[in-house]
Every structure is written in structure tokens, then in C-alpha cells.
């Protein structure tokens, strides 16, 4: 079973509250959920909607066609009617959208339609709004509907987590000391999440711009603090010169890059995978880097830890590449305590020793030099560590495969498309290869591709940037591509049809 509920309204009407409350109700009932937020860059008005998907098996995507439309305004019904499946329901308020607790009335209605007990509804709403009016509103909604689907309670123990929350958890469990950032959607989520869990040894600092962010971070890291910075495309561009300083000075630095559609301001509150190339190549000069793109919150927790570890161990720039879809998508995950290795800083730091780092090439005394032999040695040493990084990273999970493992049809994707690809190939004879580390690049991927007779590349961008990387690394050009670049993520039902067309 797999249901999709579209909840729409204008900004400020509380549609996020509806999907939040419904996600909590459904996960506490043991159902897997995934919530997609589609919103515009405004604070009031406009049209925003969420699609809440739930299933009795794992889900990490939504569908284009939905079972229920929950309309908080008249506009929602008009805009989305075409997405309603045959026999689907439209839930709205009969009071002509004037009730200020309309979102709660609608929560009551949905709960009743799925036959979930009133107690769970009341209990969860109380966590959000502890008032008599809120309680009355949900009950009014609940009592006004008939049960149409009788959901059985399942035994899954689930929790809801966004990609942003996951990065914050990973950072904290790694013993991060500083998260320095300048607000930019969709990276701001991590800034907010870490701000919530600050303490004496973990501080958030909002600097005057991203240039300051990156240079300050090199300062805090140099002085012995585990440091991470976060940004999106435009801010990442501003940081570029400091990445180059990282490259020569080898001061550890981890960057969280949450991408969105560019160029420039583009479609700022939507999603895109168009920043893989800048992650791989930003910064003048030649230096080592690690680029890793987790595909869901659990991977985001683990990979945040791995990147902080790699940066600290090798003095290398590491980039955790995410996007709006992963950052703001709300996933249900099994409740487990993720044990990570806290990162210890054992290098020399000012205060105990004299330590010098520089944007110039340095001689043996750590002062500037323009000597040709020293320059060659320094370059070789900085690039030489790539071999050691590759060896270390090869012991980590660099890619994963899903679906029918012996299938000759291979689907390749990376990052946040993981959810939609996994959910779309259930009835297809295909294997899905998710590439997680983009730099270094696993040598095993070549074999995976060569084993397949049909390869389809799926990316949320217009130029197939992973495709270019594969061609560069192993000389294979993937001709069959499904590319989407309208700022929206892939929908599982849409992708299912597209893949079937390609591998029929």
C-alpha cells in the first residue's frame, strides 16, 4: 500500500503543521512516511503545498498523482485537481476557509478517514497546541468524516528526520566545535538545527558573509577546533578563494553544500543537483578534496562524521553535497542510536607550539618561498595524499546497490534521487547503483557498469554532471539519461514510467 496526501494553501496557513502532525500520527501507528515541501520564496500568500506519502513498507519519495487533496484554500483545489487519482478525495472546510484552526480541523478529518483512533490524534495535537480550541477543532474535523480506509496498527518503531537534522546529529556526535554560516536556503536548515543543540563546546556563528565564514573557519580550525561551514550555491561561490587557501595550508575544513537551481538566484526554494561540478572543481590551483553526497538522513549522519574525520586526518577539504530535497524532505527512519566515532584533534595547535600555515608555498621553516624544487615537493606532497585518502575511503561505503542485484539493467543515480529511484523500481527488472563518494571515485563502479547491458543515468540537473564524471573517470559515456531540471524532485510514479520506457 502507498498513499499520497497533498496539503495545499497559502504561506502562513499552517500546511506544514498538517503534514507534521499527520506524519507523527502515521509513524506512531507504524507507517513509513515521507513529506515533500513545495514552497515559494515568500512569507505570506502565494501557493505552497506539501505531499505526504505513507506506506506499510519503506518510502522516501512522493508520487505526482495523489489519493487525497487537503485544501486550505480555494486555489489548491483548482491547481491540483488534475493530480487527483480516480476515486480520490478532496478535503476542505465547509466554513468557506474562515476558521483559524482550519489546518487542525483537516488533521482530524484525515485521521478519521484512515480509521486511526481519536486518542492518538488528541495526544499528538496536544504536543503542538495545548489549548481547548485546538482540541475542539481536531475533534470537529474527526467527527465530521466517515472512515474509508481502516489502517491496522503496525509494529515499526519510527522517528521523523529531515536531512538537515541528520547533518546536525552527525556533526554533534562527531564532537564538532564550530558551525559557521551565513543564512541561505536550503542550507539554513542545518544552521538552525545546530543552533538548537549548541552547548559550551559546540557553537554556531553567523558571520557577515560567506567569505568571512570560510576564512573564520580556517582560523577556528587552525586553532584546534573541529569546524564545519554550510552554504548553498551563491555562498559557495563566495567561499571559493578560501577553499584554495585550505588547499595549500592544509587546515582541515568540512563544507556542507545544499544545492538549489541556479544560475544565480534561479528558483531559490526548489531542488537541483546542478552543483556537483562546483563541488568537484571550485578553487584555483590544484589540490586534493573529498566530495560525498548522502542519499538520505541516515547516510547524512554517517557521512558527516566520515568527512569531518577525513578532513582532520588528511588536512583535506571535504564537501558534503546535499540539496533542498534531502535537506528539507522529512523521512521516517527506524529508531536506532547511531554510534559514531567522535573526532579527536591531535595535531599541533597554537598555544602549545609555534605553528605556521600559509597561503604561500612554505619552506622547511614554514616561511614563504618561491624556490622551484620546494614548490614541486610541496605540490607532490599535497597531491600525493590523494592516494592515502583513496585507500582510506575505499574501506568506507562509497556506493550502494539496490533492487534486483543480478539484473542486466542498471540505473545510476546519486544524492537525494535515491528515494524516488528506489521506490520507482519495485516492479522493474533493474539494479540501482547509488554513487555516494564522488571524489575519490570507487574503482569498483567500472565493473558494475560493465556488467550491465543497459545503463540509465538519472540526475536532477540538465547536463548530467555525474555522467561527465563517469566518462572522465572510466571512459564510459552513458547515453540513456533521465534528467529533470524544473526545480522539482523526481516523483516515484513518474520515474517508474520513464524507466520502463527506457528499458522495455
Amino acid at each position, binding site marked *: 500500500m502507498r498513499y499520497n496526501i497533498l496539503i495545499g494553501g497559502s504561506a502562513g496557513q499552517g500546511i506544514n503543521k498538517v503534514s507534521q502532525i499527520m506524519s507523527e500520527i502515521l509513524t506512531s501507528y507504524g507507517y513509513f512516511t515521507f513529506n515533500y515541501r513545495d514552497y515559494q520564496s515568500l512569507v505570506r500568500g502565494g501557493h505552497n503545498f506539501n505531499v505526504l506519502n505513507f506506506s506499510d513498507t519503506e518510502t522516501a519519495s512522493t508520487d505526482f498523482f495523489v489519493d487525497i487533496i487537503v485544501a486550505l484554500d480555494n486555489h489548491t483545489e483548482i491547481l491540483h485537481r488534475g493530480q487527483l487519482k480516480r476515486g480520490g478525495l478532496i478535503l476542505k472546510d465547509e466554513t468557506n476557509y474562515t476558521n483559524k484552526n482550519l489546518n487542525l480541523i483537516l488533521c482530524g478529518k484525515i485521521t478519521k478517514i484512515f480509521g486511526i483512533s481519536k486518542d492518538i490524534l488528541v495526544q499528538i495535537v496536544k504536543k503542538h497546541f495545548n489549548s481547548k480550541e485546538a482540541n475542539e477543532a481536531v475533534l470537529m474535523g474527526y467527527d465530521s468524516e466517515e472512515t474509508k480506509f481502516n489502517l491496522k496498527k503496525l509494529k515499526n518503531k519510527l522517528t521523523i528526520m529531515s536531512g538537515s537534522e541528520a547533518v546536525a546529529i552527525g556533526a554533534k556526535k562527531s564532537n564538532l566545535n564550530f558551525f559557521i554560516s551565513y543564512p541561505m536556503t536550503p542550507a539554513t536548515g542545518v544552521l538552525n538545527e545546530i543552533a538548537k543543540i549548541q552547548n559550551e563546546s559546540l557553537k554556531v556563528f553567523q558571520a557577515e558573509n560567506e567569505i568571512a565564514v570560510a576564512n573564520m573557519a580556517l582560523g577556528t*580550525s587552525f586553532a584546534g577546533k573541529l569546524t564545519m561551514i554550510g552554504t548553498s550555491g551563491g555562498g559557495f561561490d563566495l567561499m571559493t578563494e578560501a577553499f584554495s587557501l585550505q588547499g595549500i595550508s592544509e*587546515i582541515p575544513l568540512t563544507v556542507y553544500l545544499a544545492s538549489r537551481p541556479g544560475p544565480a538566484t534561479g528558483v531559490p526554494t526548489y531542488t537541483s543537483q546542478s552543483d556537483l561540478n562546483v563541488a568537484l572543481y571550485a578553487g584555483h590551483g590544484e589540490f586534493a578534496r573529498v566530495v560525498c553526497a548522502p542519499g538520505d538522513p541516515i547516510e547524512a549522519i554517517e557521512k558527516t562524521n566520515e568527512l569531518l574525520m577525513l578532513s582532520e586526518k588528511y588536512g583535506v577539504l571535504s564537501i558534503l553535497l546535499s540539496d533542498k530535497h534531502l535537506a528539507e524532505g522529512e523521512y521516517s527512519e527506524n529508531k536506532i542510536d547511531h554510534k559514531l566515532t567522535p573526532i579527536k584533534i591531535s595535531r599541533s595547535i597554537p598555544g602549545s607550539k609555534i605553528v605556521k600555515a*600559509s597561503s604561500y608555498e612554505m619552506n622547511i621553516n614554514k616561511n614563504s618561498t618561491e624556490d622551484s624544487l620546494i614548490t614541486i615537493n610541496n605540490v607532490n606532497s599535497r597531491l600525493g595524499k590523494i592516494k592515502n585518502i583513496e585507500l582510506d575511503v575505499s574501506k568506507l561505503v562509497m556506493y550502494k546497490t539496490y533492487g534486483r542485484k543480478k539484473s542486466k539493467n542498471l540505473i545510476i543515480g546519486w544524492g537525494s534521487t535515491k528515494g524516488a529511484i528506489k521506490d520507482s523500481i519495485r516492479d522493474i527488472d533493474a539494479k540501482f547503483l547509488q554513487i555516494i563518494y564522488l571524489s575519490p571515485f570507487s574503482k569498483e563502479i567500472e565493473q558494475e557498469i560493465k556488467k550491465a547491458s543497459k545503463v540509465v543515468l538519472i540526475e536532477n540537473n540538465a547536463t548530467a554532471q555525474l555522467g561527465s564524471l563517469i566518462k572522465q573517470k572510466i571512459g564510459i559515456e552513458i547515453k540513456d539519461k533521465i534528467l529533470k531540471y524544473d526545480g522539482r524532485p523526481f516523483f516515484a510514479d513518474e520515474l517508474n514510467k520513464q524507466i520502463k520506457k527506457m528499458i522495455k
Partner: protein
Amino acid sequence: MNTKDKLKTKEEITWCPGCPNYMILEAFKQTVAGFIDTKKCKQSDFAMVTDIGCHAKIFDYLNLSGIYGLHGRSIPTALGISIANPKLKVVAFAGDGAVYSEGMEHFIHAFRYNSNMTLILHDNQSFSLTTGQSTPTSQKGFITKVKPKGEENEPFNPIRIAIACGANFVARTNARDISHMTEVFTKAIEHKGFSFVEVIQDCLIFNLDANNKDKYMYKIEDNYDYEKAKKIAEEFNYNSKEGKIPLGIIFSTLKPTLQEKIK
């Protein structure tokens, strides 16, 4: 070995003969040696960040921890060190070209943050390492290869900007006066919060017209009065040698430091 010798490195000094940077280096060594000899801190407790420019070569001539940073970015890098380890004495060295052009946003915000660190700004009213272009403090009319008809803009007054931005400590000193520099650097480093020291310095190769201002300079008493500070800031406008050039602590006050605010 005396303390000042311990601060030396083996590097060949590549400033032009007679460059006032030698005197700034000497004054800074005396300042640091003063802290070490009076047991206020150890040599490893200092951290410097240098910008890019002639001034920044000081990085190679001092046996102290630090980062030789990017052009215009010495302030945020030093600020990072100062919040990461509040026990360090953090000093950023920068030039008028770097900070007032490329890094002006950091300069303005530094006063608002008030992190416990010192900015020593070498102001020779010229981009010298890049062979003599005008900077935001160059006098109007300064003829360069880029501006054959002369710089068309009036200069900034950084002291006035600093005071307007809520500065915690603003001072001016003269690169030809080692003992005054040492006194001012020491006070700046000891001051709690962000301390800004402008060092007026000649460049012997470029912008010769701006040189030899010593006879207009006079020393003031340490000033703690905001209204008076604004008046002192107006006395020298960087544009001409008319008027007087006050040297000393132009404004000093105590505001909560960034380290205290984010504790």
C-alpha cells in the same frame, strides 16, 4: 638568547632598504618581548594573521604562530582564531589596500563583534607590492599607471569609520617612532576587545607625495571621550598635509567582547 632574538627567523628580509616596515617589525618584537619578559604570556601564546601585501612579509620574519592569509581576509581569519582559543593574543597585520578595498565588510563588522584581538593596519596610502596603485586612503590626485590623470576620488577616513562603527579601541601611531609604536601596540593587545591601530607609514618607492608627514604629527593623551574622539578623527583627512595628525589612543572604552557574548 634574549627574547627578541627568539622572535627572529632565518629568512632574508626583502623589504626595500629603509622601508618603515623594518621599524614596525622592531616595535612589534619589542612589544611581544615585553609580554614574554614580564611573564604575561609565552611566545606560543601569540597568533598572528597577515594579509597579502608588503606589510604581510612580517609573517616570515617573526617566529610566532599564525596564518599567512588571503588578501583582505586577515580580520575574519584572526577572528576565527580568537574565538577558538580566547587565551591566545591574536594580532592581524593588514594594509590599507587590502582591508579598505577588498576586506571593508570585515573591518566594519569587527567593531560590532568586538572580538578580543588586535588589528595593526600599515597605511602607506598605496598598493605597493602590486607596484603603486591608489588605495581608498590615497590622496585625491595621486597619479598612477592605472590613473594617469590622478586618483579622482576623495579618500576614506578609516578612523572616523571605526568610531562610527562603535569601535572599542582606536589608535594611531607613526612607523618612524619605535617607542611610540611599542607603547601603542602594547596597550592595544592588553585592551579587552577589538583594538584597531593605524600605523602611518611612508612608501619610499610609490606615492612619494604622501610621505614625510612627521612634522604635522603630535601626540595626544589617551582619550576615553566619544565626542572628543570624533573631533580627533577629523583632524587628519588623508587628502592633504594640512592640519595636524594626532597620534596616540584616540578612543578607548570597554564593551562586552565576542568571547563573553557567545560563551
